[in-house]
């Protein structure tokens, strides 16, 4: 029995380490990253033309990020309107949302990390600005085209260094 003890301990540790993935099985939605309607955050009148079960991802159409004036227009908006916050904070902030078949947006959600990929809560003066400006973006293109307009998920990632935006992705 003693001979197998190390193996039993390893198996126990492995079982513990995989607990998250097994228990998270029940948490999967239709697709990874699906954003369900939440009355506290989301506009009740924001309509998905094809329903929650048919929202695509922005890259599904093979055209990359599509915005009026290209990504340059997004970069300029943030360059012109974001006010750096002297908080010394750095990391990434992702804002993900849905663009519906009319080019309207809602269901905004934020996640953030520090430079070590650890979850982080940024100074609200940073995240509030980012969210506010992202919500103002109104040039999202209808994809894949007007005739076959779909709803799709889009995200923006802001690389923050010492409270300044240094890059925007994707």
């Amino acid at each position, binding site marked *: 029995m003693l001979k197998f003890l190390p193996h039993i301990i390893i198996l126990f540790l*492995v079982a513990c*380490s*995989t607990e998250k*993935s*097994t228990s*998270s*099985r029940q948490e*999967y*939605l*239709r*697709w*990874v*990253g699906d954003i369900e309607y939440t009355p506290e955050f989301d506009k009740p009148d924001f309509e998905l033309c094809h329903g929650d079960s048919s929202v*695509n*991802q922005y*890259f*599904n*159409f*093979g*055209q*990359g*990020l599509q915005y009026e*004036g*290209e*990504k*340059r*227009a997004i970069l300029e908006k943030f360059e012109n309107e974001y006010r750096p916050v002297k908080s010394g904070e750095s990391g*990434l902030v*992702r804002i*993900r949302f849905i663009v519906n078949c009319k080019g309207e947006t809602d269901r905004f959600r934020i*996640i953030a*990390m520090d*430079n070590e*990929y650890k*979850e982080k809560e940024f100074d609200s003066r940073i995240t509030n600005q980012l969210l506010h400006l992202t919500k103002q973006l109104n040039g999202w293109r209808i994809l*894949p085209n007007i005739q*076959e307009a*779909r709803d799709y*998920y889009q*995200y923006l*990632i802001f*690389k923050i260094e010492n409270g300044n935006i240094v*890059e925007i*992705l*994707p």
Partner: protein
Amino acid sequence: MNLRLLYIVLLSPIASEIYGQPNCNAFLYTGDTLKYEACKISEGVKGHYQFSKAFQEILDDALLKDPSYDYAYREKSVAYLKSGDFLTWKKLMDQAVEVNPIENLGYRGWCRYQFFRDYKGAIEDIERLGALINGDIGTSANGDYHLEIARAICYKALGKKLKAIEIIETQFSEEDYFFGKYDYLHLGILYLEIGEYEKALGSLRIQEKENDLAENHFYLALVHKDLGNQSEYIDHLVKARELYVEGRMMSDPYTHPYDKVYLADIETELKTAYNK
């Protein structure tokens, strides 16, 4: 879903950038029956979209069978990567790297650069891979870059342009090196930025022959601007705009390539050129 949309989705990156499923029998030959069984389970993802619940659950089952089956971690991570969820993606890829660093460091490093512009992290991963293996460290997941060129771009982004040039020149001198589609463009821009105009022209002209792009002419224009060649400056900007409108520019279905320019950049520069 109509046929056209179905066609778009099937041919889109979501369908085409799935990594090759390992040959499960290879695990049998090495006597790793647990990994063989995990591998056979993971074969069930075929036909399921990477983002789907079924895809994730099948790989969870594979990991229950063998928690050291790195392929499953990496495949699970892809949907998180493409949706910008850096927190979950990194946790999954860290597990893949932990159990099989040689197979996963290059991929993790590339993704840190491409999706999150984590230049420092990308360099660490690529250099760690280089220290672990003898010989070629391979290419980016999309095949556009050799990882050495990606490493050079990361050094450039951190302000180390001379080191970036040194890495690219060394890579170019490798026997049988298969040049990437943007290699000479990046090198030409680096030369431009350090004021080595003749070398910049040389690199950008090679790029022009190999893979002519709007960016190539945009930066050729900037070289001529600095050299005071007004007519060439304008001609290349006009050519850059023409190519851009034709759709011949740097592109990536997920994010923008480094050194990419936009139509507005070309037009703004054209206005400057005409006003000179």
